[in-house]
Structure formats: C-alpha cells, structure tokens
C-alpha cells in the first residue's frame, strides 16, 4: 500500500517537539475559541492566519487545523453545560446534552460527546487517508469544464441540503460571487465594479468577511439575547470516563451511521450543522428509546457529535484533493494555503507530498491530543465561560479588529469588518445562510475562471458542460442536489411516508 508508506512518512515529518507544541497550543486555543461566543472555528482561524505567515507551512497548517479540531470539541462544552451552542453544529447536542447535565450527569454527557467526536473525526481521517489520493489522481485529468462542474455541484448542495429557504441560499451565495468579482478581473486583469473607489481596487478579502460575518455578527446576536450565562458545574474524573466508555460500544450502530452521514455531508459541502441534525433525527427515529430523546439520552449526544466531527473533518478532503472546501473553516484554511504559496487541488498530492501527508498525519495526532486535552481541562474552560459577557464582549471585539487589521495592515479593513458584521447580523436574523456566502467569496474567482475558460474552449457554447460523460454526470448530480428539497418531497409523497422536516 503506497498510502500507508506516505502516511508513515507524514508522521516522521510531524513528529517534532515544535510541531507537538503547536498542536497543543492549537487545540487549547481552538477549544477556547469554540467555547467563547463570537469566536468560532472559521473566524478564529481567520484572525490567527496572518500570524502564521512567517512560520513554515507545515507547522502553520498544524497549528491552524488543530484550532479547528479544538473548536469542534469546544462547541460541545457550552452546549452541555450552558445550553448555549458555542457553534452552530452543536445545537443538536443541546437537545439531550443539557438535560443530562441538569440530571447531574454532565461528566457522562461530556465524555460521551468528546469520545464520539473523536471517533467521528478518526473515521473521517481514515476516509481522507484512503480516498483523497485516489480522488486527487482522478481529478488530475480535469479540464476547466470538469472543474466548473465540481464547483456547480458544491454550490447546488448548499441550496438543496440546507434548511434555509432555497431562494435565500441562492441570494446569499450569489451575493458572495458578486463580492468576489469586485476588484481586478483575474482573467483579463482589468478593473471592475470598483465604482471609482481606490479602497475597492483589491476587492473584498474573504478573511475580513469571515471575521465580520461570523465574529461581529455573532456578538450582536448574543448581545440581543441578554448578557448572562448560567451553567451547570462540570467535573470529569477518571471513574466517570471509564464508566461512560464501558457503555459506549452498545451504540456502535448509531456511531457508524452518524460517521457515514457526517462524511457524506462533509464531502458534499452541506457541512457539519445539517449533518448533526440529520444524524440526531435518524437516531431518534430508529432508536428503541426514541421517545425519550430530549430528556437526556446519551444516544442523543453521541449521534450529533459523531456526525458533526466527521463532517467537519471530512470537509478537508475536497479542500485538499479538489481545491473545493467543504466548510467555511476549510475555506479559510484553503485561503491560508494560497497565501503560503501552495495551490490546493490534485497537484498538491504530487508536488507537496511532505505537506499533504504531514497534514493528514497531524489530523490523527491532533485528535488524540485534543481528546486528552478536553477530557482533562473541562473545568478550566467552563470557568472561562463564567467570566461575564460584559468583559468578554469588548475583548472579543478588539481581537476581531486586530485580526481584520493584520490581514493587510490596513485600517480600512477594520471598517469593512464592521460593515460585514452588521450585514451578517441582519442576514442571520432573516434566516439567510452565511456559509455559502463565504464559500462563494473564496471560490468566486476560481469558479468564474473555470467557467470562462470552458466557454472560451467551446467558443461560447454552453453545451460544453454536457459534452463528455464525466462533466454531464457531475452537472446532473448538481441539478439533483439543487432540487433535492422538491425531489425528496415527491419521493416522500410517492412512498406515502412522512418525511422529516
């Protein structure tokens, strides 16, 4: 197996004291980011990205990806102890996690959440190890039309799989493409849509958008809900961990199903949030204790956490192998790769073997370190959450502002961040999804480039997008994903079964 050899080589790249140190720092920072309102995986990574420009790319990606793992773990802490989801994908964890904490089983709930997150992530990393090189090799033959069809499939998945109204998803996404188009046209080099403003010459940077939309917008939403956090005490001791672990193997089927759902939703960029809800819903219907879900069933914690983590992790597969990120955080990491001078996509596996396999090896190690860190440090993180919002909020605002400034050392970006923040608040209030907007800003230029190149090759005929079997298949899948809501409704009516909302 060529893959195993590459992976072992990856471990030899990663295993150094400095990388281990970055991993630890990344996990702790990540959990902190996941725990605090207003700081999430995507904008946490965006804020810290400029600080890593001087680091070697492998160390930098280890630090940043570990922040991502940490944030995934951290979301569970706030959901279970405080009934406040630190991240959107941990909303489903609150349904049973918080009732468990109220019954005095916080330790069991946290252990179950962390362990199932770990299993979900491990499953996804194994999938990445085995599948990513194959996908990358396959994608090496892709021309512009194939590339565009992959983008098309990715964005259609958002429309069909999201729980927001399709028209709002489309509006948000296309707004992202429009924002990406501002500035220099990457194909011809001419300026467009700047309306004479010199500040807009370089376009909108997605890092600023991420910090504003997710950071400032989130603070505004939290502010609206009032300022107090009331949490349950958390104590995890080895006896509780051991007891919970002994009970977990009974739920292997739930875990396996959740892993599969998570991987599927992560690779097609529907993301961790719908994956966690879907997994919870299916577990509820298929479990014999389904009626008791919502009152503190451990299975109701396992299902969404496993799915969210495996979706969050597998979102890196298309990012590495195709250059199409599966989640906003993966999109920010992709932006980081571009800044470090690494072109994500199939060629990465050929030209930057050390980097790719180092990253994949660090996913294994990072999740093991992460599990150890969260199991031992929960009380510390819970204590941080008890710091009142009146103190935390201005500090987070300052951190966001500094993060926005350091992207280009430009004060105008700080103003743009606030504009994006206010816009993000209103969009979020009106149920517009933000993830497709951010992904469109990141991928806008590349999607447009492949679209225009395809048209150039075909001399302007749109038929190029169904000219070969491969393109036609991917485009067809895209249309299925686009109308998935309608299709599943029809199917549901045809079989006479009630579909979950």
């Amino acid at each position, binding site marked *: 197996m060529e893959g195993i050899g590459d992976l072992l080589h990856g471990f030899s790249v990663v295993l150094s004291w400095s990388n281990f140190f970055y991993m630890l720092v990344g996990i702790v920072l990540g959990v902190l980011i996941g725990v605090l309102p207003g700081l999430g995986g995507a904008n946490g990574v965006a804020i810290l990205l*400029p*600080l890593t420009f*001087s680091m070697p790319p492998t160390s930098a990606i280890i630090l940043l990806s570990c922040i991502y793992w940490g944030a995934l773990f951290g979301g569970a802490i706030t959901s279970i102890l405080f009934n406040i989801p630190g991240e959107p994908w941990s909303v489903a964890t609150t349904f049973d996690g918080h009732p468990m904490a109220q019954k005095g089983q916080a330790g069991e709930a946290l252990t179950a959440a962390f362990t199932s997150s770990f299993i979900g992530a491990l499953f996804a990393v194994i999938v990445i190890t085995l599948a990513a090189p194959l996908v990358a090799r396959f994608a090496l033959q892709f021309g512009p039309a194939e590339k565009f069809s992959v983008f098309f499939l990715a964005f259609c998945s958002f429309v069909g799989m999201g729980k927001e*109204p399709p*028209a*709002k998803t*489309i*509006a948000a996404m*296309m*707004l992202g*493409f*429009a924002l990406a*188009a501002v500035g220099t*046209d990457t*194909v*011809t080099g*001419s300026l*467009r*849509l700047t*309306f004479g403003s010199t500040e807009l010459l370089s376009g909108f940077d997605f890092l600023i958008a991420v910090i504003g939309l997710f950071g*400032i917008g989130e*603070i*505004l939403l939290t*502010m*609206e809900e*009032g*300022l107090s956090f009331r949490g349950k005490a958390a104590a995890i001791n080895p006896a509780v961990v051991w007891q919970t672990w002994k009970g977990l193997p009974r739920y292997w089927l739930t875990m396996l199903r959740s892993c599969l759902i998570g991987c599927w939703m992560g690779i097609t960029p529907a993301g961790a949030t719908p994956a966690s809800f879907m997994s919870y819903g299916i577990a509820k219907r298929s479990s014999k204790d389904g009626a008791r879900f919502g009152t503190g069933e451990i299975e109701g914690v396992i299902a969404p956490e496993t799915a969210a983590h495996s979706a969050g992790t597998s979102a890196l597969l298309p990012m590495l192998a195709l250059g199409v990120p599966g989640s906003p955080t993966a999109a920010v990491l992709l932006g980081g790769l571009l800044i470090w001078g690494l072109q994500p996509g199939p060629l990465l596996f050929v030209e930057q073997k050390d980097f790719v396999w180092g990253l994949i090896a660090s996913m294994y190690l990072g999740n093991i370190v992460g599990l150890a860190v969260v199991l031992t440090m929960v009380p510390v993180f819970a204590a941080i959450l008890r710091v*009142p*919002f*009146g*103190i935390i*909020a*201005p*500090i987070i*605002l*300052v951190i966001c*502002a*500094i993060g926005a*400034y*350091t992207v280009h*050392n430009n*004060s105008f970006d*700080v*103003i743009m*961040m*606030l504009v994006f*923040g*206010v816009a993000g*608040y*209103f*969009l979020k*209030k*009106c149920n*517009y999804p933000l993830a497709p907007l951010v992904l469109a800003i990141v991928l806008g230029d590349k999607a*447009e480039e492949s*679209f*225009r190149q395809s*048209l*150039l090759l075909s001399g*302007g005929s749109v038929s190029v997008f169904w000219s070969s079997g491969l393109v036609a298949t991917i485009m067809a899948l895209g249309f299925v994903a686009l109308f998935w809501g309608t299709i599943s409704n029809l199917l549901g009516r045809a079989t006479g079964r009630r579909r979950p909302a």
Partner: protein
Amino acid sequence: MGVALFVLALGAITMFGSLKIGIGWADEGPQSGFFPFWVGLVVVLASVVNFVRAMAVSPAALFAEWPQLVQVRKVIVPMAIYVAAVPLLGIYVSSALLVAGFMRWIGRYGWPLTLCIAIALPVLTYVTFEKWFLVPLPKGPLEDWLGL
C-alpha cells in the same frame, strides 16, 4: 423585507457595474462583466422571491423586539466610534477606551476592575504582536510620545 430589498439593490448595482464594462463576447472570450452580470441577475431574481415571501408574512411576526434592538445598538454604536478612532489614536488607545467604556457603562463594573482590564489588554496585545510575532499594529500620538 428590508433585507430582501437591500440584497436586491446590491444585485442591481452589480448588474449596473457589469453593464458598464461590457457583458458580451470580445476577441479574448467573455468580457469582464459577463460573469458578474448573470450573478447579479440571479441575486435580483432570488430577492424578488424573498421579498414576495416576506410580504406574505404577517407584520405581527416582527424581525426583533425593540428592547433587543436597543441591546444590539449598544454594541454597534461604540464599535462604530472605535473603528473611526483606530486610524486617529492607534489601535492600543482605542481598544483601551472601548473596553473601559463597554465595561463601565454597559457592564456596570467598578472603576478598579475596568481600568485593570482596559490597560492590561493593550499591553498584552502589544507584547504578543509587536514583540513576539513582530506584527506592527497602528499606533497613534500616545505611542509616538512614549517612543514605542
């Protein structure tokens, strides 16, 4: 409803801007405005749908309660002042003022704790960014005076 109109306006601006630079076919392929024009058109169409949907919702289901909006304004106003102050005073002094103002008037903390955090945060930031990561942040008159 308002948001749908706002998004619609952005879409229309995109289309207008694209029309100015040409949306047709030139010798070197599609012109610069080609892609954004269609993107803008989709934004406009989707916003029309959203607007009609929003019209159908009864006005009783309000966007947010007034007290909530007052809370939100409490963050937006100081933040706007902060953002305007950064180029003038530098990020350190502005940050200290933002933290102090927020904690004193919104969090209602006593002066000792407020001052403690308002001064500690910029100092910590300074050490982390300028000394450790060697990333310069915007400075103002105070830093010049201190010779930093």
